[in-house]
């Protein structure tokens, strides 16, 4: 089987760990590097990409594709014109209406099995046929069906975590009871870290600590930046603030992922 592109699932144990921020900015960084990327909102319980990207109307939602009522082409919105230069950026959005959220949380096992089949089919339709380089799944936190479907379909799982004790414990459990069982390549991104971004020793301490706790590779650490909070989700740092330290961290992460086989 020839693997042309990669599917990345961005997941976490708890909410608020920065999955959407990371997914969107990582997608924008790949596009800056000339890659063709499609970002999917698989957080059907709390869709947020449509708000963050200020997209109100789409031809079809990702919900419709998973329901089998449309093909994936109808779901994709081309946002390449928002990117100054580089590759192409598409997004597939989750329907944010209350009715759609209610509908998605009432699906049965058979529906979820078909949804898994449809997610797995994206490898052929988007990576192999359309020649996209990356599909990024922004998932719901915890053990939601849609998230586990995304993890099973992915080549790489990026786990966004913080130093919050319950998050650390939950993430450790998920590493052993979820990603490991599915034999998934997993990398940790530690977010909201309280250290001086320019201090080398502080950074190395954190990296050592994370490797001891989780026993999986660390893709990167993101310090607690006040300007990220201040931006209130209105800025794609990788695109609009390329000189920001956060954008530099994303560059490192994207380069590491690019080099993975």
């Amino acid at each position, binding site marked *: 089987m020839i693997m042309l592109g990669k599917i990345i699932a961005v997941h976490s144990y708890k909410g608020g760990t920065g999955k959407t921020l990371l997914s969107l900015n990582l997608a924008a960084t790949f596009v800056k590097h000339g890659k063709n990327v499609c970002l999917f909102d698989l957080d059907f319980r709390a869709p947020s990409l449509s708000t963050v990207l200020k997209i109100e109307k789409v031809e079809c939602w990702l919900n419709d594709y998973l329901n089998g009522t449309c093909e994936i082409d109808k779901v994709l919105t081309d946002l390449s014109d928002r990117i100054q230069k580089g590759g192409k950026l598409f997004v597939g959005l989750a329907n944010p209406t209350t009715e759609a959220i209610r509908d998605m949380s009432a699906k049965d*096992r*058979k529906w*979820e099995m078909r949804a898994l089949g449809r997610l797995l089919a994206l490898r052929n339709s988007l990576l192999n046929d359309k020649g996209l380089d990356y599909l990024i799944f922004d998932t719901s936190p915890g053990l939601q069906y849609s998230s*586990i479907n995304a993890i099973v379909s992915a080549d790489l799982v990026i786990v966004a975590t913080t130093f919050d004790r319950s998050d650390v414990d939950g993430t450790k459990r998920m590493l052993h009871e979820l990603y490991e069982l599915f034999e998934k390549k997993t990398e940790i991104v530690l977010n909201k870290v309280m250290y001086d971004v320019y201090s080398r020793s502080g950074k190395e301490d954190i990296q050592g600590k994370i490797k001891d706790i989780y026993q999986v590779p660390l893709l990167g650490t993101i310090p607690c930046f006040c300007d990220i909070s201040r931006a209130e989700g209105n800025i794609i740092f990788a695109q609009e603030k390329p000189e920001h330290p956060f954008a530099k961290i994303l560059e490192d992460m994207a380069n590491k992922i690019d080099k993975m086989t």
Partner: protein
Amino acid sequence: MYTCKTLWGSIVTAQEVLGKKPLNILEKIRENLEKLNEKMEVMIELQKHGRKDIQPLPEAPLDVMTLLSMPDHLRKTAMTVCRLGRATADELAQQTHRARAVESAYLNQLVIMGHLKKERKGRKAYFYVDRGTQG
């Protein structure tokens, strides 16, 4: 050319013994032996894992929660079928780096459990997840 001796000592060809379509009969015997072999593999596998009580289930959706609750050896096979869509035991073995006979046994066990479907096309047996129609 297959030959044998009659009670009277004369040599006859296999074609004369078996009638007009000896190859078809031999083919049928080979197919039956293969089916028997697959059943034996399943029985050995079931005994190995102490699951003599497994009954065929008519409908058992292969969703992610089912995958999670499976023993490791079956999960690997089931996930590979999910990824490939449709595959023979040979194709599975190439992906999982396990022996073809082992994969064949696991695949047939998953068929018995109702998670996979099996379809014969000539000499090959294909295994797939029956996702049915959207509804």
